[in-house]
């Protein structure tokens, strides 16, 4: 499994949101895209999962260009996204939300219990809340549900869009710890974050996006110690 983005351009109407970016996510890695608001991070993820159309360029998954594969079929290929703002189905129970994550799997009935146990193992809280409506969960629990739900499709690569958004610091640390754990179980992760500190601590490599362009690529650890990066994304008070 290798996800390669080649000279990707994406438009919203006439506005070019992604201006020809290229990057690579290798098997087993956690790669993070960091950048300010409007840098194009979310658009990039949405284009990989198929919610946005590619204007030009390629999305290579295992060497094959998937930029014309319909979005709902990309899940079958092994690309699963946990959307920005969590995207829980508020009227469905936690269990029903998790079942939705398997909607298109051919072996969903056989896999269901095993994968539910896997998700409940990562997030014991979800098991306690299994029969509660998704909309009644706290922000952190909803984030767990969103990640758990995207794991139900047994993804090869997991796209995480701002998992720390709107969460308390302790919950953020908890979520990132679990993201590392998921990665250690063999899932490749592409992580989009504004919380650069946490993202860089957890990721192997990072790309910095600025207004639709990749401006820097480096090992995450190096970026953590890069004075310019600290200045721009970590705040001078970061430590």
């Amino acid at each position, binding site marked *: 499994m290798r996800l390669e983005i080649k000279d990707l351009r994406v438009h919203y109407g006439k506005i070019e949101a992604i201006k020809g970016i290229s990057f690579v996510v290798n098997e087993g890695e956690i790669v993070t895209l960091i950048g300010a608001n409007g840098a194009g991070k979310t658009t990039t993820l949405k284009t990989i999962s198929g919610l946005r159309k590619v204007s030009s360029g390629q999305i290579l998954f295992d060497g094959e260009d998937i930029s014309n594969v319909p979005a709902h079929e990309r899940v079958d290929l092994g690309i699963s996204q946990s959307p920005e703002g969590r995207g829980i189905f508020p009227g*469905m129970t936690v269990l029903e939300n998790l079942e*939705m994550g398997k909607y298109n799997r051919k072996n969903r009935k056989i896999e269901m219990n095993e994968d539910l146990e896997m998700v409940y193992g990562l997030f014991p809280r979800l098991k306690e809340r299994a029969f509660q*409506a998704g909309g009644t969960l706290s922000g952190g629990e909803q984030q767990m549900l969103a990640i758990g739900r995207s794991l139900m499709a047994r993804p090869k690569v997991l796209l995480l869009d701002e998992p720390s958004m709107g969460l308390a610091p302790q919950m953020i640390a908890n979520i990132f710890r679990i993201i590392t754990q998921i990665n250690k179980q063999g899932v490749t992760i592409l992580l989009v974050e504004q919380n650069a500190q946490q993202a860089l601590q957890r990721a192997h490599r990072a790309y910095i996006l600025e207004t639709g362009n990749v401006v820097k690529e480096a090992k995450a650890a190096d970026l953590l110690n890069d004075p310019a990066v600290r200045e721009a994304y970590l705040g001078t008070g970061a430590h």
Partner: protein
Amino acid sequence: MINLRDKGADLWEGWNRPKRITFVFALLVVISLLPFAGNFSFSSFLNTPSASYQDVLVYPIGMFILMALGLNIVVGKSGLLDLGYVAFFAIGAYTDAILTTKTHLNTWQVMPIGIALAMLSGVLLGLPTLRLRGDYLAIVTLGFGEIVRIVILNSSITGGTNGVASIPNPPSVLGQKLDLNHSVNFFWIVLVMILLVIWMIRRFTVRRPGRAWEAIRQDEDVAILMGVPILRYKIWSFSIGAAIGGAAGVIFAAKVLVIAPDMFTFNVSVLILSCVVFGGMGNIWGVVFGATMLAYVPQRIRFITNARELVFGLVLIIVMNLRPDGILPRKKREKLSARKEKSA
């Protein structure tokens, strides 16, 4: 606000099988005897002034329930706002009118053709338009409703403004005549159709299509991310809704014998949508109740003649203010099976 639907569901879940069967059976008996309610002093308050009570039970009540159930799949289950639902009703009605007057086919033979044509038009309308969302879809469907009416109004095969007259009655069913003097039999036929539709919808909604519709209604983008082929399911929702509207139209034409374009105006679409919203979007029993009320009440209060529509409108406004989710809203509680698992 108390959720009447949950109260009812709690009661139902508390019952064992024989109790449930008895209840359903008793309810069916009471409903099928409704046409005779006007004859007895204790139930004569149900009688409608200036319109035959037995006719009112078939049209508007029965027809409204059928159409509201169909529209509920589209609006209530999948969240697609359709403002031109009357078009499918009109297609069903005109299919019956034209084919039974011009060929030797009878109403029952035309029924599948009417349903198929309504479905087909649903697919044709859906393919290009269901990529649109929300307000845009509402406008396009509104346009479709008008286009169908105007085409009917201006083509010769549909009789233009005059419509189609002397549509034959359906042949007898089980030796029971279906004509002007036997409205009761029509009522029972429509009742059977309603029960079939309810059974069908319940089958659909507990299975994968129901989940897909639910997901699309709650969040279309996330539904895609889950791997739901949303266009396909939207078209299914649209064409199943259309099929039910078409079936209602076929029966309607066979009952009223004369149809004309002014029976299929935008007003009907709005009224049926009101039935769905008033009763409780997404919940079958709410929709049935809403359609019954919205069809029956204006007939019942006909004695106040001119003020009728005004009073009716006021009642709608007041009720929607008190119960914005409808009289019997969709489920809000925990999943049914959850309780069983917990108690087990």
